[in-house]
């Protein structure tokens, strides 16, 4: 059945960058309509995984299937929304001008521009050049582009970095709403307290997946009080068992 097939299916993904293998044969699934957190320290390969999902990363070997098609296929280009960690918007254009342009490229309806501006809380900055926004506003303008159209999969690289707690909560509410409508979200973060808001966690370290499961499940399995502690115990576990 189509609807029960996972939104993302990754098998034995290997990526080499700068002569060094940075992903060592990753395999995981992301079910549809879920919010999946990709967590791990800086440099563990989160961004590379996300780039592979979007199809902009050259991969050495392995399979990456997104919404039933090979990642990066032309048919996926308006079904997958992607927000990079460093904002990829035109600094010399206003928020609305940026969004109008990307909306035309995605052939999204005109009304989408106003919708996404409101969703990321930039209504007051609509006609301000993106280059003059604060860091947090800048990254929200970047996120807004990914929300244009009706993407079935959203790949968001550290979308809440540098935001105040109120905004962070609002964005997570938005992510939940989107998931409620059937959108699948892959969200990376290096903040452990955000991990608790996801349906499922992929804990990464040094190009490998350390654990894959629901936050509560991971806490239970490791007997840790919080996810930070769970993460540490998982590292000790893998280091202790060289199998």
């Amino acid at each position, binding site marked *: 059945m189509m609807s029960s097939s996972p939104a993302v299916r990754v098998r034995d993904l290997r990526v080499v*960058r*700068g002569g060094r293998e940075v992903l060592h044969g990753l395999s995981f699934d992301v079910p549809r309509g879920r919010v999946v957190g990709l967590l791990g320290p800086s440099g563990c390969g989160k961004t590379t995984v996300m780039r592979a999902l*979007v*199809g*902009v*990363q*050259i991969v050495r070997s392995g399979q990456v299937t997104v919404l039933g098609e090979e990642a*990066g296929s*032309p048919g996926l*280009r*308006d079904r*997958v929304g*992607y927000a*990079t960690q*460093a*904002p*990829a*918007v*035109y*600094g*010399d*254009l206003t928020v609305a*001008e940026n969004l109008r*342009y*990307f909306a*035309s*490229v*995605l*052939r999204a309806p005109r009304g989408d521009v106003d919708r996404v501006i409101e969703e990321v809380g930039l209504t007051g900055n609509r006609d301000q*050049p993106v280059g003059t926004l604060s860091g947090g506003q800048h990254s929200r303008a970047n996120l807004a*582009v990914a929300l244009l159209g009706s993407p079935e999969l959203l790949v968001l690289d550290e979308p809440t970095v540098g935001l105040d707690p109120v905004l962070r909560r609002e964005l997570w509410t938005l992510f939940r709403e989107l998931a409620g409508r059937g959108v699948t979200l892959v969200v990376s973060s290096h903040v452990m307290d955000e991990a608790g808001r996801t349906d499922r966690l992929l804990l990464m370290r040094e190009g490998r997946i350390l654990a894959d499961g629901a936050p509560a499940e991971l806490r239970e399995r490791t007997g840790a009080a919080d996810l930070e502690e769970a993460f540490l115990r998982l590292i000790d576990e893998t280091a202790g068992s060289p199998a």
Partner: protein
Amino acid sequence: MNLAITLATTRRILAQLRHDHRTVALLIVVPSLLMILLRYVFQRQEAFDRLGPMLLGLFPFVVMFVVTSVATLRERTGGTLERLMSMPLGKLDLLVGYALAFGLAALVQVGVVLVISLTWLGLDLTGSLASLVLVAVLDALLGMALGLFASAFARTEFQAVQFMPALVLPQTLLCGLIIPRDQMAGWLEALSRVLPLTYAVQGMQEISTRPRFTGTLATDVAVIAAFTVAALLLGAATLRRRTV
């Protein structure tokens, strides 16, 4: 290619230009200022009549080369190129979008220089005004296409700007502007024959000395157009959907 996306790209680039008043001012004022300088440096009208049109072909070429190489390098380093490549945008949509936007800018630039040259500076044009505008805009598009291609080999804006002297100055020396090409050493003349700027300057020479649209001019126009298309296609090959 998709016309709506191409035109949206053109609109976006023009909007970026509109926000950047200083660049617009430089684009329009600098070539005019150079023409005025040239006129008064020469003192003699006939020397200006001979050289003026050739420089009218050179200015838009140089300016568009620099503007495009920096603009596309920014798209590459700022992540917007990668974002666009993950969207339903064809490589030609982007390139033609740039060509239309900068072609339009070149038209304004050439228009202003021409008005000043033909009225205030008293430039006496033997050939037709239409062919002069045609060749000048083609030169601008050639500069744009080469700038786009060159930007693929630059990592920083510093490097991109350095490509201008590296690629443009040798052509300026060899194109017949400083010394007529038939007076050059054989190997230099042969070299000049494979460089696009030679045809740009030769075309302008034809326009400044012959009243009719000559066969040589037709060849020049065709060669400049062919170089432009080739550089655009090479530029398209440097836009990658997947990177390391």
